[in-house]
């Protein structure tokens, strides 16, 4: 189950990299968050960690539903371009993404030798981090950049849940805190950009 | 000590003879009516009685420098190798000091040239500076090499050692040094391939240009300085590169020495008749030959080994 969800997580992320429509991108982000939430809930059940289950539900509500919704609203409101063409050409991405995945597994290989479990999760999280960065690099428009930023948070969260087997509540709060702040700022920035456009 | 003083006085006395002798030889060879060999003395006595014309543009340097041109050279005479057996000599003076004293004299001569605000003076000084700068390393290397062969850095002692025990194993080295020194003798005294003492042509003159504005006593000082300079070089050549005759009895020894001097003068005169004056910028080539021979002499000495 865990492996399946992680696979789903990474798959949605990769698909998001090739997406050329904004709403589709938001959808992929939402699915990505969903798999993350389910993952947290599953792991939480298996190790009997209530906080993790709670955070899983929070993720579900916030990231899988609320944030995509808001994002969509915002983009409709500002009439953001729905066409988002990646800067990096597809054939380059096709080469780069598998190379990255292979690299991260290779990177995590010594960890497997040292610790019994979780090394692959670390690898997946790191590659998720790379992929989210790639998402940010790929696009010039602001909206996909924000989604890239959000997927970085997701990969962080993935790392937190899988690799450490549940973190102290503090950090989880931290992530949400960060997330909220980020959204606020992004909104404000949109606002500013808008103003600038009008002038 | 008396002998020592006498030889020095003798050297001073015969110094003016040598230039006159050379001139005489040259004139004879050119089918001219030769001047008397005592022409030098006549010139001096004439200059002594003449009044001195001092240029308005000059400074106190003009009235001081002629003395300082002559006195280092006379001092050098005291340090030359002995010419007869048993004579007192200053054993310790080495080539560097002698070169230094000669340079001191040249220094004042060059300054004198610049003092009169005449363009000739500057011209002469400039050329003299050029030539003597390049002659200095050759001089030091040559004398150093000879001193090594003679086992003593002191010029006087070196001459005696050479007389007592000639280093036949270093003959090559010795000849190289001799050639080098002979070129220096010509260059430093302003003889023909380097400078023509008999002409006042601005294209060629070096020594004469510097003293163009001197007259009377001052000119006499400078002229005697130049003849003494020739004396120094030829006597050094005679003692160091013709090391024989020191063991003869006193009178004979002196005679041999004087003969050697006249022989050198004859050589120079013959050379002067047979060569043309070099262009100024070709002079370094000649001096370069001197430097190279000096080097060669030193190096062959080292390589053949002690």
């Amino acid at each position, binding site marked *: 189950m865990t492996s399946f969800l992680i696979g789903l997580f990474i798959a949605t992320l990769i698909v998001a990299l090739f997406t050329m429509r904004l709403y589709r991108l938001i959808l992929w982000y939402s699915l990505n968050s969903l798999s993350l939430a389910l993952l947290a809930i599953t792991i939480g059940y298996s190790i009997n960690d209530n906080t993790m289950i709670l955070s899983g539900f929070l993720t579900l509500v916030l990231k899988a539903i609320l944030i995509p919704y808001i994002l969509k609203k915002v983009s409709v409101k500002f009439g953001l371009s729905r066409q988002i063409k990646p800067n990096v050409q597809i054939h380059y991405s096709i080469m780069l993404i598998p190379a990255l995945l292979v690299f991260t597994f*290779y*990177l995590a290989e010594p960890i497997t030798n040292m610790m019994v479990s979780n090394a692959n999760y670390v690898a997946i999280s790191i590659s998720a981090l790379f992929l989210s960065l790639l998402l940010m690099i790929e696009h010039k428009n602001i909206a996909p950049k924000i989604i890239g930023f959000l997927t970085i948070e997701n990969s962080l969260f993935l790392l937190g849940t899988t690799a450490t087997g549940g973190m102290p509540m503090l950090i989880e709060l931290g992530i949400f805190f960060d997330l909220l702040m980020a959204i606020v700022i992004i909104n404000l920035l949109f606002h500013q950009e808008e103003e600038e456009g009008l002038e | 000590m008396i002998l020592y003083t006498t030889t020095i006085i003798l050297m001073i006395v015969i110094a003016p003879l040598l230039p006159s002798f050379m001139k005489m030889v040259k004139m004879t060879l050119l089918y001219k009516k030769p001047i008397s060999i005592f022409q030098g003395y006549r010139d001096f006595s004439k200059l002594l009685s003449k009044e001195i014309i001092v240029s308005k543009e000059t400074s106190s340097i003009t009235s001081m420098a002629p003395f300082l041109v002559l006195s280092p050279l006379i001092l050098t005479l005291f340090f030359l190798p002995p010419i007869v057996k048993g004579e007192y000599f200053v054993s310790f003076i080495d080539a560097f000091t002698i070169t*230094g004293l000669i340079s001191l004299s040249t220094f004042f001569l060059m300054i004198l040239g610049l003092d009169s605000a*005449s363009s000739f003076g500057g011209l002469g000084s400039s050329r003299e*500076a050029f030539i003597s700068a390049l002659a200095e390393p050759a001089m030091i290397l040559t004398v150093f090499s000879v001193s090594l062969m003679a086992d003593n850095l002191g010029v006087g002692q070196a001459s005696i050692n050479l007389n007592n025990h000639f280093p036949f194993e270093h003959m090559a080295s010795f000849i190289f040094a001799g050639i080098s020194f002979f070129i220096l003798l010509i260059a430093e005294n302003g003889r023909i391939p380097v400078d023509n003492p008999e002409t006042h042509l601005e294209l060629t003159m070096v020594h004469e240009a510097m003293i163009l504005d001197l007259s009377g006593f001052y000119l006499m000082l400078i002229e005697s300085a130049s003849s003494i300079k020739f004396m120094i070089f030829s006597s050094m050549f005679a003692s160091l590169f013709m090391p024989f005759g020191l063991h003869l009895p006193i009178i004979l020894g002196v005679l041999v020495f004087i003969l050697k001097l006249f022989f050198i003068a004859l050589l120079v005169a013959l050379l002067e008749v047979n060569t043309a004056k070099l262009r100024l910028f070709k002079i370094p080539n000649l001096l370069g030959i001197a430097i190279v021979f000096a080097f060669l002499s030193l190096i062959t000495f080292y390589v053949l080994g002690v």
Partner: protein
Amino acid sequence: MFLFDNLSILFLFLIILGVVPNLFYSFGYLPHIRRKAYYLIHYFAFIISMMGVVIAGNALVFLFFWELMSLTSWQLILTQIEDKSTIKAARFYFFMTHFGFMFLLLFFLIVTNGDLDISFAQMKVITSNFAYPTLLFFFVVLGLASKAGAVPMHVWLPYAHPAAPSPVSALMSGIMLKVAIYGFFRFMFDIFGVWQLEWGIFILIMGAISSLVGVLYALSEHDIKALLANHSIENIGIIFIGFGMGMIFSSLKLPALSAFAFIAALFHTFNHMSFKSLLFMGAGSVLHETSTKNMEKYGGLIKAMPITAFTFLLASISISALPPTNGFLSEWMIFQSLLGSANIDNISLKLAIPFSIFALALTGGLAIACFVKVFGITFLGLHRSTNAKHAHEVNILMKIGMILMSLVVVSLMLFTPFYIKLFDSTINALMNISIYDKIIPNIWSLHSISNNGGVVSPLILLAGLVVLTLILYIFYKSLNIKHRIFHTWACGYNTSPVTQYSATGFAGPIRRFFTWLYDPDIHFEKEVILGHKTKFVDARFSVHVRPLFERSLYQSSIKLTNKISYYVYRLAHFEQSRYAAMIFNMLLSVLFSYRIFVHEFSWATLVLESVVMIISVKVLLVGGKE
């Protein structure tokens, strides 16, 4: 913290000897300086910092005063801004001295193991255990030679010295360069203790080249202070020749010869301090009266400024190493130690040393030519400009300064045995060998230490010269010859300042001979009449040499810096959208390196991963450029 051993006290003595006349001169010069307080603060701080360096007992104090010395001298150069070149010179100087400081710093860091408070003796222990002493040696050479001004670190001197106010030039050239020589003595003896043969040879070659290069560039110089600065390079070179010989002899286990060479180097250090300070003071007086540094604008100053002229003449004779002056004596000693090489066994070394002799002798010859030019063009003949016409003798304080300094020169000449005794006791403290009795068996003569070495007797030479000159003079007076005053003969024309020989012309033959070194930039303009080639109304000829080292070493490195900075600038100016890509690549490469170098290393993976890196950079940074 502070150390007062023989060496320190000797150099402290040198500093005091140089500073006291300079104080007078400086106060005489003060009315012409606009920022007086600024000048005085830095002036005294400069003197104190020089003293601080020579009495420093540990690395921290040494470095502190060393850098303070650079700082204050830099500020002093900036006291009077005449034009942009002063600013440039100051900057260049400061940069060069800082550059040297870096190497000194590195040297000290290695030999102190990072604990900068330890004494020199403790450093010696650490040094002897260090695996690469030659590396340390080169740090020292680079660090100190850049301050001392030896080739190829000499380029700043001809710029910095002319830019500074004259008392400061005298201090910088006379004393500050010697502080670097102090550093050589201190480090070689107290930190290294033993040295390899090659080091000595290196120093010797550096010295020989410096002396030749210095004098050759001096000859072609028209700026009087730049000329003197170039002569400092020459003299530092001569000191290095002595020092290098000392090192060579010491590593060949010939302590007496070695001590002799070191004494010669020390003696020349003192001599150079005395006559170079005096020359700079004289040049300063001339500059001050005529307000130009260009020698072509001087002429005839001996009539207006006799004291300046005669002290300058004394210093000129001394620096040209003419007997019987002190400059001659120390060069004589250095020659003797070079000649001492006849006694060594190493044949290749023996063959190499004549080249140094050659360099030193040629240097001597050229120095004479150069100082005839300086003295003759500056003080003799007619005024070459109105500036020179209105010159007067300088004020009393400056005169006192110059006279005191010439007394120092004379004292070095007359009291040679005393000074040699001083140097000998210093060398004795460093090397445990005293050769004073061998050098000076009686006060009349100065002996070389090598077998069959030469002897010179300064006092006899001096006395002989004086007596002979007096005899000649008395003879002349007794004749009571009539004098007549008339113009100089000028082929029937009037004598005029324009027809005099110029400094450029004077150096002409030598410049022409060394064209390959000078690579001169010649400007010759003439206004011809009606197309005739030979008839012209006005002609102007000027020559500027292009210094070889500056071109090859410095300007090319400046070019390189500009080029690199251009590319770096371009690299850094990626558009903002690239920031994320940069972070991406950086993260990738950091993780790569950690994986490969920290965990397990294999060449195959390295190659593989670098290929991945290249692709990533290509795709994300370069590829997306269009």
